[in-house]
């Protein structure tokens, strides 16, 4: 059943050379918490894995420098959660996403780069990073590309990343002091982690006025995390009041969101959950910025 070769690179350059030589027969493996599960289910094929773990000495970091927050692709969810940076209330949503992420033993393997790389709706870190308007840094032997995360996904399990490219980093601008964020999801079983609905909210408030707001869901129609741009627009410049929130979630959100029916929940129920979660998240982000 498990039959493949593995290449253990010496460094990033060696890894990129391997990808170039092996082409689509080789897949990079971060924590493997998605890839090995898919492989076991027969949903992904490769002949050789490129083990990214040796690159952790250079690609596992959480930094704030020069006005940029930079997360190394091989930073584990556990490392992100326990980083100094996440003690700051401006990153509270990332803290939520880490704390509710799977279980202790998955968090010790799952990586930030892998969470972005899976291109699956239920990617908690990626949903939260979308609310920070993060960008993905890609490296190949040809050099570097930077792609805004919001343009990174093409379809379920499809991204603009080429097979010979590696994700090396995700980064975003340092938020101002009047900013904070929330991540929330609903599921049947805590610790399993794959929710029915997940939302991330980032906001900057001036007194109660919404200076900036960014809202991302696990899906608003297409099968990957995306921002709810019209709902954001309806809140920008307004007071973060219960009335305005209700208008956004009841009148605007359903117009831009379509949801799937499956064995876990109906589309109607998913939209309802999205509304409830978004309302909670918006109220919470207001409380967090207010220092409550």
């Amino acid at each position, binding site marked *: 059943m*498990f*039959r*493949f*070769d*593995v*290449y*253990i690179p010496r460094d990033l350059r*060696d890894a990129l*050379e*391997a990808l170039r*030589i*092996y082409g689509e027969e080789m897949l990079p*493996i971060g*924590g*493997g*918490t998605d890839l*090995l*599960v898919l492989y*076991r289910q027969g949903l992904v094929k490769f*002949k*050789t*894995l490129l*083990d990214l*773990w040796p690159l952790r000495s250079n690609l596992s970091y959480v930094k704030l420098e020069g006005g940029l927050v930079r997360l190394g692709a091989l930073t584990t969810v*556990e490392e992100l959660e326990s980083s100094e940076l996440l003690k700051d209330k401006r990153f509270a949503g990332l803290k939520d996403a880490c704390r509710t992420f*799977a*279980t*202790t*033993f*998955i968090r*010790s*393997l799952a990586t930030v780069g892998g969470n972005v790389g899976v291109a699956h709706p239920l990617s908690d870190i990626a949903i939260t990073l979308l609310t920070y308007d993060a960008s993905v840094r890609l490296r190949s032997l040809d050099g570097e590309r930077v792609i805004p995360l919001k343009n990174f996904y093409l379809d379920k399990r499809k991204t603009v990343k080429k097979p010979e490219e590696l994700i090396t980093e995700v980064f975003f601008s340092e938020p101002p002091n009047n900013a904070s964020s929330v991540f929330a999801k609903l599921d049947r079983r*805590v*610790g*399993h982690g794959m929710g029915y609905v997940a939302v991330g909210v980032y906001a900057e408030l001036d007194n109660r006025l919404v200076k900036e707001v960014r809202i991302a869901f696990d899906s608003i129609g297409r099968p990957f995390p995306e921002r709810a741009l019209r709902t954001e627009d309806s809140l920008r410049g307004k007071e973060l009041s219960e009335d305005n929130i209700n208008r956004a979630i009841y009148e605007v959100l359903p117009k831009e969101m379509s949801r799937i029916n499956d064995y876990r929940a109906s589309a109607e129920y998913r939209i309802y959950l999205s509304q409830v979660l978004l309302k909670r998240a918006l109220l919470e982000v207001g409380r967090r910025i207010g220092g409550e």
Partner: protein
Amino acid sequence: MSKVGVSHASWDTYRDIEISFKVNGKEVKVKVKPYERLIDVLRNKLGLVSVKGGCGRGECGACVVIMNGKLIPTCLTLAVRADGSEVLTLEGIAPEGKLHAIQKALLDTYAMQCGFCFPGVIMTSKYLLDKNPNPSEDEIKEVLDGNLCRCGSYLRFVKAVKLASKYINEGKIFFDESEVMR
């Protein structure tokens, strides 16, 4: 770059990779296949059968061990990643003839039913107690929430970890087997 690919015609043509690591305090050298998972190597090549295969996909916690101080699922870890590491399994948490406080506490609270989940529960509890000898009830539940127990001993696990925490704080980390198994 050295080219590592070999013929993929049949599985036994895959090369052996020699890895060396420390298991339960002992240095071992073992040949592994590139596709082998750590659980395969620990169980089949090193005889450490406390490591249980449950779901094989990171969902049940039966296969967890402590590697370099981190709790990891061995069903989702390539064996080659153990190279140069330090691994602790249930077999290594107490000296020969002794039981660790968490084992004693699980017996004291009559938590065991079939016991299949126990190695995972014990390693998870040990991981928690190593980091925090005085965990709150919420912290215990949070860390143990990945360990499935089909027999439903969850509430007793919480009791047991609290009791183990008490033992450890009293300086009682190891117990004689004879003291426990009357």
